[in-house]
């Protein structure tokens, strides 16, 4: 579904677009809509009621309100468009250049933009009016200059983000000149935010302009604008409130339509679906019971006929993990291998009760240390996760909060169990020592960016050990690490497992890691386990075709001799 279709499905967006189209249409077609001239005053008609040809009646000077409204729309909207055009013409090219080329132009233009943004818009406009006289167009140009920074900063920010993208490097290597890279690659990225910003700034320009007119510093009296009409109507607000009603309504509707349009465009262009909200209210469907007639269940972790389903935007469900059986005995390491999308991480997440939004266990049974965890309440889950089952994630760096020290991230969960601050700190240092960190006090004081990836993974393993778990779920724990660091982490996992009698479920795609660490291995493909068995058997003599293709895909072994 493309952005256009998404937009059409948003009733508020469509409605506001219609309102704007009507307003713009009326402004453009003003001379066709009414014969009455906006400045033809007939004193006899002052405050006159509506009558044939004059659908909204007359104002204090006997001028046709409808005619002033539609002709006023031309000036009001025209002013906003002028301001917008100036802002766009200044802000977007400068932002592109500053973001893409950087260096001195970026420094100078950013400095100028900060200066402009520090100026109070209303006061600058009032001062300019005093200097330039009552010309609404000149004021709108100045307003455009004042609004240009909002485009500049938006565009520059996005361009700085994409400047480092590999596809821009690829375009450079492909021999494209800079202007071509900007028009072909960079403009596409900033297009959507610019459209949204346009609608927002148009609303602001409209409001500021009407405000100026209302306090009487805009155009000289003859030019009809909505702000001027409000100003005139305000003088007779007691006698004829409808004089304010019509321009107020026009202004309010247009501004509201612009804001709503901007948010509808944002939803459509940035693909923020509004669908799942209805779906969430639906009660979870049943969990299909497990078949328990096969192998006897393992004491530590036992999974039987597990199914995991995800809710689709249309409310239906799609099963991504089917009929998975898995056992981990205490003190054993079980590998779960498969390629991306095979469902291995989904299986691990359902054992931990941390399936992402929209996913749920739709069938089967999982027992951890004898407790059935499918359908477990949040509080029981928490208790289980702090004391029985622990988790080591794939990306060590993204699992540490960059704005807190390692110490506070390790100590906080320990303290939550009612331990004193000093004791918790001591315990955290002990945990770090247990994962072979030589200088625990320094690491406790460090922020995540100050330590290496391997160190971060040690910290996360230490955190996982905090509750003395008996089962460890490790999801690709070494994939993001260098091989030499991987070897150290694997050795650490092996040692912890041996010393503490941990059961480990190791999710990985690397058959070498499986060979190094695991006792048994389960091979997953397209949400099903296709083969299970002792590692030497499965890797040495695979029975299933898929396992064989995996083993065959391993590149020729390095001919290095281990002894020397």
């Amino acid at each position, binding site marked *: 579904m493309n952005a256009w279709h998404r937009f059409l499905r948003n009733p508020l967006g469509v409605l506001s677009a219609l309102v704007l189209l009507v307003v713009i249409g009326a402004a453009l077609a003003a001379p066709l809509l009414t014969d009455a001239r906006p400045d033809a005053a007939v004193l006899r008609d002052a405050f006159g009621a509506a009558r044939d040809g004059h659908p909204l009646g007359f104002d204090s000077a006997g001028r046709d309100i409808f005619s002033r409204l539609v002709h006023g729309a031309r000036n009001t909207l025209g002013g906003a468009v002028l301001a917008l055009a100036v802002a766009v013409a200044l802000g977007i090219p400068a932002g592109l250049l500053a973001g893409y080329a950087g260096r001195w132009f970026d420094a100078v233009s950013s400095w100028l933009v900060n200066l402009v943004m520090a100026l109070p818009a209303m006061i600058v406009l009032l001062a300019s009016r005093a200097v330039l006289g009552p010309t609404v167009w000149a004021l709108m140009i100045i307003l455009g200059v004042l609004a240009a920074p909002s485009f500049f900063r938006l565009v520059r920010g996005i361009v700085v983000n994409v400047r480092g993208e590999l596809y821009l490097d690829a375009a450079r290597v492909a021999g494209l000149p800079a202007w071509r890279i900007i028009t072909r690659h960079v403009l596409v990225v900033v297009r959507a935010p610019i459209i949204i910003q346009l609608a927002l700034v148009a609303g602001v320009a409209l409001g500021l302009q009407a405000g100026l007119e209302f306090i009487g510093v805009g155009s000289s009296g003859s030019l009809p604008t909505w702000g001027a009409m409000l100003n005139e109507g305000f003088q007779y607000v007691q006698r004829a409130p409808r004089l304010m009603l019509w321009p107020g309504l026009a202004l309010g509707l247009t501004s509201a339509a612009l804001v709503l349009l901007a948010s509808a465009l944002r939803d459509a262009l940035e693909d923020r679906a509004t669908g799942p909200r209805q779906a969430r209210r639906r009660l979870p469907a049943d969990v299909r019971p497990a078949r328990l007639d096969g192998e006897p269940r393992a004491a530590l972790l036992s999974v039987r006929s597990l199914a995991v389903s995800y809710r689709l935007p249309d409310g239906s469900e799609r099963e991504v993990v089917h009929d998975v059986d898995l056992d981990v005995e205490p003190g054993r390491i079980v590998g779960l291998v498969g390629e991306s999308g095979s469902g291995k991480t989904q299986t691990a997440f359902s054992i931990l009760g941390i399936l992402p939004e929209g996913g749920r266990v739709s069938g089967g049974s999982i027992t951890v240390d004898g407790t059935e965890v499918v359908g477990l309440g949040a509080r029981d889950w928490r208790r289980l996760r702090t004391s029985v089952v622990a988790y080591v994630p794939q990306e060590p760096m993204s699992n540490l909060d960059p704005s807190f020290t390692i110490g506070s991230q390790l100590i906080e969960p320990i303290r939550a169990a009612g331990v004193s601050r000093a004791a918790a700190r001591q315990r955290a240092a002990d945990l770090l020592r247990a994962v072979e960190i030589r200088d625990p006090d320094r690491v406790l004081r460090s922020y995540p960016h100050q330590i290496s990836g391997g160190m971060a993974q040690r910290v996360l393993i230490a955190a996982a050990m905090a509750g003395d778990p008996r089962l460890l779920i490790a999801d690709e724990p070494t994939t993001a690490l260098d091989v030499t660091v991987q070897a150290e982490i694997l050795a650490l996992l092996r040692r912890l497992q041996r010393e503490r009698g941990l059961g480990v479920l190791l999710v990985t*795609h690397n058959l070498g*890691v499986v060979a*190094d660490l695991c006792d048994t291995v389960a091979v997953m493909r397209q949400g099903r386990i296709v083969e299970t068995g002792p590692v030497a058997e499965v*890797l040495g003599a695979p029975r299933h075709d898929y396992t064989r293709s995996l083993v065959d895909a391993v590149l020729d072994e390095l001919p290095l001799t281990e002894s020397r």
Partner: protein
Amino acid sequence: MTTSPLLRLDRVRVNFPGKGWRAAPTEVLKGVDLVVEAGQTHGLVGESGSGKTTIGRAVLGLVPVAAGTIHLDGSPIHALTSRRRRALSRDLQVIFQDPYTSLNPARPVGDTLAEPLYGQGQRPREARQRVAGLLERVGLPAGAMDRLPREFSGGQRQRIAIARALAIGPRLIVCDEPVSALDLTTQRTVLDLLQEIQRDTGVAYLFISHDLAVVRHISHVVSVIRHGEIVESGTAEQVTAEPKHPYTRRLLLSAPVADPQRQRLRRAAYEREFAGERS
């Protein structure tokens, strides 16, 4: 008669500016020598932060060279004007690691592939025909050109990136970890494709990877880089079977093999030789 190699790096140094005002620059490459012969693959192995990617970027002109020289086919390319650099794209192309960010997500695949052709001044009609041919070459249907990158799997995207690199028939492609984001089976097919293309077109690769098994599989010559310096260089067979430098041996021993018995030996050797050392 001595012919000059296709690509030659002599004492190449690259600095990154330090963070903060007047901070000292960090030296990323500390005098790298490297030679890629025409039609061959030179594998470059190193861990994160070793500077292996920076070598590739220096060759491509994406980072400035502080000292030393880079020659392509005997002519210097380390300090070119942007116009001369653009002309160089005819001979020098790139395949990046991440097939997800190396293709512009907002543009159809055909546009991305035609880009280098436009860069060489081809007309849209010819370009489109050439793009269809390229897609076929890397095993994708010609209809793929009207679709967006997100409609393709990782392996397919990497094929698209390969097609882009091949578009103008370059003589050298810098491959920066081209298969490390891919699944094992996909990895194998992409490596096969690269080798096949080399056989057919005689293109040379500077193949950068952290994975010794992959580098050994595809390379004629292998160099090992650590902390911005080449520690060992030789034929693929020699470097991976009888490494001279202890760091190379350590890299080799720490990569686990998919055979439990063999891996037990390897782990024992690793622990015997490198126990207590930290990278």
